[in-house]
């Protein structure tokens, strides 16, 4: 992202415009994806890794263990194998990239990925009535999960 900032002045402006003032979230359709990353915080509030761990674990929120193994959560039974193990993921990816993956994995891995977009309105057909127009996670929950993922170092 450093390159983007020095080379594309216009892009900086766009990124800054999209960065939310503290307490106000960037709406899901205005999240700026550039070079497979989302540079700016979605909320302006630093993510809380402990809250992020809960979102990660909770079956009604991230439910990340449905598809990913995570040795840091060994006490949880049943880690899925649909996605790669997230051990060491904080060493493989920058926070800005992790933010992009969690917010809308399709922007990073392509339309075919089965990983849901947790902060995206690019969803499937016939969405359940009580979920229309809603994202799976809130902007702050995404920030929290990203902060948690950053703690998963090699």
């Amino acid at each position, binding site marked *: 992202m450093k390159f983007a900032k020095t080379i594309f002045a216009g892009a900086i402006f766009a990124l800054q415009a999209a960065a939310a003032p503290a307490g106000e979230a960037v709406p899901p359709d205005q999240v700026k994806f550039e070079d497979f990353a989302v540079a700016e915080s979605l909320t302006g509030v630093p993510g809380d890794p402990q809250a992020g761990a809960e979102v990660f674990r909770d*079956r*009604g929120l991230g*439910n990340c*263990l*449905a*598809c990913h*193994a995570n*040795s840091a959560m*060994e006490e949880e*039974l*049943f*880690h*899925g*194998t*649909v*996605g*790669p*193990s997230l*051990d060491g993921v904080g060493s493989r990816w920058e926070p800005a990239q992790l933010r992009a993956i969690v917010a809308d994995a399709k922007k990073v891995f392509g339309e075919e990925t*089965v990983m*849901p*977009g947790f902060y995206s309105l*690019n*969803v*499937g*057909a*016939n*969405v*359940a*009535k009580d*979920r229309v127009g*809603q994202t*799976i996670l809130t902007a702050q929950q995404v920030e929290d999960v990203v902060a948690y993922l950053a703690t998963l170092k090699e």
Partner: protein
Amino acid sequence: MRRGAWEGLPVRGKFAAIGAGVLVASALAFSAVQAEPVDETLSIDGVEMTTRAKAQEGLPFDEVLSGWLFREAETRQLEADSFENPGMLYVERGEEIWNTVEGPAGQSCASCHGDAAESMAGIAAHYPKWDADSQRPINIELRIDKCRVEHMGLEPYKFDSDDQKALTTYIKHQSLGEPVNLDLAEGDMQSWWERGKERYYLRTGQLNFACASCHEANSGLYIRADHLSQGQANGFPTYRLKQADMVSLHNRLRGCIRDTRAETPAAFSDELMALEVYLTWRGTGLSVETPAVRQ
């Protein structure tokens, strides 16, 4: 509220202990384990089941596989032993209904069809079938309703009533071992097949999954505690240990669709009938296993 494959169900008793050890060991020891379906044969009451069949043209697999091959040893064993298979109680109950006179016409199923072991042998392996009267495909449940309404002066069964499940299970059980094989040349079956195919690959819901996301792209992998099979229809109605009950195909389809966080289509709606036609075709060559046992 019942929780489905997505949130995961709490696993109870005997099966919890077995599942837990196996899964944690495999999921944590290696990343992205591809747990192969077992290489075993299934025979029930001396009848050999075809649990692997050459895939129809156009499918991305060489072989289509029965869901039985993806289940834990204890679950597989329950299906293999018809004395222990809890689904056999529904077969017995279905036989009673078959022989019971009901309704103003004073008829039972047996009044018209006699001994089901003869008249119904192999029949259900070729359902859904084209129904010229309603100009749509019908499955066994709808065929039963047609008999009830037209010949017995009764109302159709309420969806998933115990009697509907028992009688359907009984009739399908008369095809145990028979390879699934649909006649797509009848009536308009082909266009329902097309429509079902579209539905199979349609991504739905907030989670944005198609049937293929789980049962084609990721079959063989684990979604939480569930070893994803190819999602074949040949064992239905199946006895499901988690629910301790028979589960009809349309109930299962509604559950899988609801798990994508989509609106759930009604049982026997055009959408689900088209899906049943296509899905059943995908399993061509697999034996009817009703009542199969699943986790």
